C-alpha cells in the first residue's frame, strides 16, 4: 500500500531517498513524462530507460540541487499536495531542459554567424573557441570589453524588440530559431560588438540570455565544423502525437474553453458559452500556443498542430 506522508518524511530524514520515496518519484516521473512528446528525451522515445534517465536528472538538478524534495516534504500538508508539488517540479525540469535546447540553438547560430560573416573578425591569441574574442571588421578593437554586465545590457537594450522584430510567443515563435531571425541576429551582434567592444561567445550569450529572458544553454563543444540545428518538420504521425500531448497537458478547464472557441470562432461568444469571459478564452488559447511553440518547427506546422489539438479536444466532446 502507498506510504503515508509521515512515513515518507521519516525515510527522507534517515536516507534521503529510500525504497518508498524511490517508488513514488518513479511513478510520478513515469506518468508525467508520458504526457510530453518524445522529443523531451534525448533518447527520442519514452521507455523505462529514458524515464529512469529523466528521473535521475530531475533528482540531481531539482530534488537535490534545488532542495525541492526536502522543501516539498516539509511544506506539504497532505500526500496529495506532495504529489502535486513533485509533479510540478518534474514538469519544470522537463520544460527547462527543453528551453535550454532552444537557447543552445541560438548560441550555435551566433557562433556560426561570427565565423562565417565577413563583418565579424576573430582577435588572435585565443586558444579555445569559447574564449575566442570577436570584434567588428569595420571598427576593430584589440582589447576585450571592460564594460560591466549592467553597462553591456544597456547597450543591448538600445535596440528594442520592435527594432529586432523579436518573436517570443504565438504561432511564429519557432523552436528551431527562437527569438531572433537571422537578419535580426546579425543586426544585434553588430550593435553589441560595436557598442561594447570585443566579446567572446559566452559573454555574448550572457547578454542575450538576460536581454531576451532565455534559460542557460546546454554546454556544447564549439568544434570547427559546428553544425546548425536541423529544421526539418515532423511527419503527419508525429504531428498527431504532439497534438495529443498538447491536449493531454491542457487540462479540463482550458480544454472546455478551447472547445467553445472552436464552436463559436469568437473569443467573446466562446467565453459566454463556457460561462467564463473573453479574457479567459484568449488566455487559454495563448497558453495552448505556448505549448505548441515548444514543438513546432515552422509557422505552418504550428498551425497544423493547433488544429489537430483542437480537433482532438472538440472531437472528444461530441
Amino acid at each position, binding site marked *: 500500500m502507498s506510504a503515508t506522508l509521515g512515513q515518507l518524511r521519516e525515510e*527522507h530524514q534517515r536516507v*534521503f531517498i529510500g525504497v518508498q520515496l524511490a517508488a513514488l518519484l518513479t511513478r510520478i516521473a513515469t506518468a*508525467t513524462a508520458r504526457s510530453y512528446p518524445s522529443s523531451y528525451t534525448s533518447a527520442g522515445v519514452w521507455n523505462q530507460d529514458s524515464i529512469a534517465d529523466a528521473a535521475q536528472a530531475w533528482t540531481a538538478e531539482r530534488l537535490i*540541487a534545488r532542495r525541492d524534495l526536502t522543501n516539498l516534504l516539509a511544506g506539504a500538508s497532505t500526500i496529495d499536495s506532495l504529489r502535486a508539488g513533485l509533479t510540478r517540479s518534474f514538469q519544470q525540469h522537463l520544460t527547462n531542459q527543453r528551453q535550454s535546447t532552444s537557447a543552445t540553438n541560438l548560441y550555435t547560430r551566433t557562433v556560426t554567424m561570427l565565423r562565417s560573416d565577413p563583418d565579424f573578425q576573430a582577435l588572435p591569441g585565443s586558444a579555445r573557441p569559447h574564449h575566442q574574442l570577436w570584434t567588428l571588421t569595420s571598427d576593430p578593437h584589440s582589447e576585450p570589453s571592460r564594460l560591466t554586465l*549592467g553597462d553591456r545590457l544597456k547597450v543591448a537594450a538600445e535596440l528594442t524588440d520592435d527594432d529586432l522584430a523579436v518573436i517570443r510567443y504565438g504561432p511564429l515563435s519557432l523552436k528551431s530559431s527562437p527569438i531572433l531571425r537571422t537578419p535580426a541576429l546579425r543586426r544585434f551582434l553588430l550593435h553589441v560588438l560595436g557598442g561594447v567592444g570585443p566579446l567572446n561567445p559566452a559573454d555574448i550569450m550572457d547578454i542575450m540570455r538576460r536581454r531576451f529572458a532565455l534559460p542557460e544553454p546546454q554546454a556544447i563543444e564549439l568544434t570547427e565544423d559546428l553544425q546548425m540545428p536541423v529544421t526539418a518538420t515532423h511527419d503527419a504521425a508525429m504531428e498527431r502525437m504532439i497534438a495529443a500531448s498538447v491536449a493531454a497537458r491542457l*487540462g479540463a478547464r482550458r480544454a472546455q474553453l478551447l472547445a467553445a472557441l472552436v464552436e463559436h470562432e469568437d473569443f467573446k461568444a466562446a467565453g459566454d458559452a463556457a460561462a467564463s469571459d473573453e479574457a479567459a478564452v484568449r488566455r487559454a488559447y495563448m497558453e495552448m500556443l505556448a505549448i505548441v511553440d515548444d514543438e513546432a518547427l515552422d509557422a505552418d506546422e504550428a498551425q497544423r498542430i493547433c488544429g489537430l489539438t483542437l480537433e482532438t479536444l*472538440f472531437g472528444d466532446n461530441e
Partner: protein
Amino acid sequence: MTHPCPLPVDWLDYMQGADEVGMTRHLNDCGSCRTLLGQLEPEQPATAWAERFHCRTDAVWSEDRPAKPAPAEFWFSAPNFEMSEAKIRHADLSIHNAFSYREVDRTLVLILDTSAESHDSDWLDVVPVLSDIEVATDTDLIFTAEENTLGTPWRTVFSHQCKVNTAQLDTRVGALTDIGFLTLTEALAGTVAEERWGAALQGPDDPRARLDEHLEQAFTRLRTPWLLLAEAEEDCESTRQPAGEPSGHPTPVSHELHVSRAKILWLHPIVPDEEMQEYPLAAATLAIPSPHMWVLDTDRLKLHGKLEVDFQQGVLLFLITTASFQNIVRIRLAVLAKGGEHHSAPFTPRTQLAVHIAHGLTRQAVEKIGAEILP
C-alpha cells in the same frame, strides 16, 4: 462547473486499479484527461536509478523554533493560524474580520525586517522564496547557493512582499550567510547589481507574469491578516470623531480589501469639470474632452496617462503621458474593473510607455487605478 484534473500519477494509479467514482466521472467529462490516459501504459517501472541518491542526507534540512524570528532567516509559514475578532484592537469591528486557516501547505519565506512600522512587534516584513530561479522576473532578487545555509539558489518574490504575524510562522530552517545578507541589504537600498534581479517580463503573454494558482492562494493567505487589520483600522478612523488620535497601526494603504498590496497610490480620474477647474487655460483652448485621463500627483510619484484599447489585440492599455518619481525603481498598476482586480506587469515609469492592463476590458469598465510601488 469544471473540476480540476487529477495528476498524471493519479491516472497511473487509476489505470492500475485504484478506481474512484469521482475519477471515472471526471474522465467522462474531460477530453484532456482521456487523451492523457491513452498515453499511459500499465507499467511497474524499476527504481534502481534512485540507488545512487541513497543517503544523500547532506541535502536534508533541519528545523528549529527559536522564540523570535530574526532578519535574513528562512522560516516555514505555519499550517494553522487564527486571528479572532478579539485580537483586533478596536472593539467596534464587525465579526467578518476574524480570519483563520487550518492544515494548509507551509510556505518558505525570508524575514526582511522585524522592526515593524507599528508599535506592535508581532508583525514582520517577509518575502516568499521559490526555487525556480530560471523564471525570475525583474522584481525577483536571486540569491546564489553560497549566499544561504540551505544550499540552493533562490528567487525572492518581492512583488509578494507582505507583513505577517509571528503566529503565522512555524519553524526556522536556515539563514542568509554574511555575503547573502550583504546582497539583501544592497537590494533593499537599491544598490545591488542589475544582474542579481531576473529578466524583465517580455509582455502580457509572458508565462512568468502569472503564478501558479496554489502559490497565489498561499501568498494571499499570508498577507490577508495584516490587510484585515489595515482595513479595520481604516473603518475605525473614518467613524472616529474627530480623527487625530495616533494609531497603533500604520495608516491603511488600501481602500478595497481585495486590492491587497501594501503600497498603493490611487490615481484620480480627470473628468471635464475638473479639467476646467484645474487647467482653465488649457480647457479654454482645447475643445476635446479627455474622460479617460488619470492622474497621480504625490511627492514620490507623479503619473499622468490615459486609457486606450488596442482593438487588434483586445488589450486595455494605460498610455503614460508624464512620469516622474523619487526613490522608486518599479511599479505595477492595479485596476479594479467589473468587480475584479487586474494587474500590469512590473515596469519602470516613463513617458510614452504603453502599459498592458488586461485583455477584454473596456475603458468604461475601469473603476479605480492604483500604482503599486514595488521594492
